[in-house]
């Protein structure tokens, strides 16, 4: 019998209720920070400490799980979350008194996760990487029932490392995506679905509807924090074959929908056109006015990412 604790069930249900909710009750306006960072340098360590301080992130005594975007390796393409971003996040959460900081990912295409991590520079940049890393594709799982799902999925086996985290930190790369227009914090959650059960790729999510499944996964993990590596992102035919795009920003916040919507504005994508964001939002987080922005204004750092012709209608109008 698959194990699922009452705590997991309550969390998943609470997330779902929050979104299907009984109502659109007044909610606190989500805080999103946009921090300038022009390169992958040692300055990132200070940047990350400042970002967590701005958001008053409380992780003392908690188990933090960092979930980067690790997909494929091509020396010429910024496909993965940069390893220095992951290490800077790890140091910043440790400095805040986290009981444990783990790195966890379940790549969707390449089965040899550690080879991929090594090729992407994780072993070289993160000391003791293998010891603190969990391959979510073959982690122990619990069956989680999806309450009022958007997709055709009724339940999913999900890794206990992520379900049991005191704080799950999504660390995506800012990229365009050939099916979903953009891949950011919410889409990064696809990497939580275990390939050891669903395969490589995790095709069940595609058949269930990419946008719908992304929104469903977001509901299962309401207690998360998102930090987007937009220092050098990917434009064009992302998430694997696009070209580098230096956006020079780190976008962060506890409301993943609001963070993703802000990233879209920076990328020149209309967040209200992105279906998975509309499905996941509960309090108009895709609307510019509702989000409390700190740091740089998205309009000021906007740098349009090249979009595939099929997404030309998604371009955010200026002004």
């Amino acid at each position: 019998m698959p194990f699922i604790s009452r705590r997991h069930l309550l969390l998943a249900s609470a997330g779902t209720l929050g979104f299907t909710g009984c109502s659109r009750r007044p909610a606190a306006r989500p805080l999103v920070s946009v921090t300038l960072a022009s390169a992958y340098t040692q300055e990132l360590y200070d940047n990350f400490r400042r970002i967590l301080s701005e958001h008053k992130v409380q992780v003392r005594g908690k188990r933090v799980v960092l979930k980067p975007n690790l997909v494929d390796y091509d020396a010429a393409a910024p496909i993965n979350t940069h390893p220095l971003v992951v290490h800077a996040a790890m140091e910043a959460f440790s400095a805040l008194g986290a009981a444990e900081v783990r790195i966890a990912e379940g790549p969707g295409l390449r089965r040899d996760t550690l080879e991929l991590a090594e090729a992407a520079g994780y072993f070289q940049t993160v000391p003791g990487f293998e010891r603190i890393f969990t391959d979510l594709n073959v982690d122990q799982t619990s069956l989680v029932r999806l309450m009022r799902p958007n997709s055709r999925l009724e339940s999913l086996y999900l890794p206990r490392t992520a379900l049991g985290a005191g704080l799950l930190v999504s660390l995506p790369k800012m990229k365009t995506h050939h099916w979903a227009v953009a891949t950011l914090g919410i889409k990064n959650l696809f990497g939580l679905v275990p390939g050891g059960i669903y395969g490589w790729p995790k095709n069940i999510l595609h058949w269930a509807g990419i946008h719908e499944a992304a929104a469903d996964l977001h509901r299962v993990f309401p207690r998360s924090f998102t930090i987007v590596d937009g220092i050098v992102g990917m434009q064009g035919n992302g998430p694997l074959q696009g070209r580098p795009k230096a956006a020079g920003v780190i976008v962060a916040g506890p409301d993943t929908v609001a963070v993703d919507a802000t990233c879209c504005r920076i990328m020149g994508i209309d967040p209200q056109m992105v279906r998975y964001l509309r499905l996941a939002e509960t309090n108009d987080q895709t609307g510019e006015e509702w989000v409390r922005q700190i740091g740089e204004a998205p309009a000021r750092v906007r740098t349009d990412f090249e979009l595939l012709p099929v997404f030309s209608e998604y371009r955010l109008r200026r002004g």
Partner: protein
Amino acid sequence: MQLVFSSVLPSLRNAQNQDGGWGYRGGASWTEPTAYALLALAAAGESGEDVARGLAFLARTQRKDGGWPPHPSVDQSTWVTAMALLVLADQPGATGSDDANAWLMRQSGRESGYLHRLREWLLGVQVEENVNYSGWPWYPGTAAWVTPTALTILALEKVSRRKPDPARRARIETGREFLLSRMCRDGGWNYGSTRALGFAYDSYPETTGLPLLALAGGRRRNLEKSLSCAERYLASCPSVEGRSWLEMALLAHGRTPPPSAPIPPAFRNLIDTALFVVARAAAGGRNVFLS
């Protein structure tokens, strides 16, 4: 060869869990690493208590529908059924292989089903991959992909050697056509997608050897481009798993792969360890995927 086995097999045996199965990197037992460990022990000619316990784990975890779950806690049979059948097909008198064979024969990629193709046609969806050939999915109800299709072909071929059956033969050959239809432009394979939105995808070293091995023994085809690609990959592939499949594939097609290092510096998981043993045995003339 014996030196290789005596260096590697103890760590394989030590990784066996109390329940008779093996985990990916220690930890709880899963079907896939258990099957690979048993294939490695068979390749090394082992037949002791550890093999019996491993087979008992597989017997215990087979589901009523004939398939295997990836992990005993999962309530669904999946592609790992092919892995279990690869083991059981070598075991005289093993129960469960007929049911496993039947389960696999019932599976096919959803994209090649008539209803789905009709729906796509009615909706005017531009299909970029060839969906005329039915392969095998990782998970029931989803599309077919290269790795589960290649492993299922190898498993069904093993069964066919003992029990020839026209229906099974037809599925095997259709599966091989599926693999050929998913070959990338350089002759290698990735997970099973050759293009999207008009952009071609490249192959990977670690996913090129396995389909090439599954194509060995089929009807004669010109695979020169794929074999050249495999040889190129073998010269640079860092992964033990990838190298092992490439070596076995080249051998199966009559090529002589360059000699590998006797023992790699590190095995990252049980599949690396097991496939290394299996590939060394294949180099010595005993390929447990084909024999």
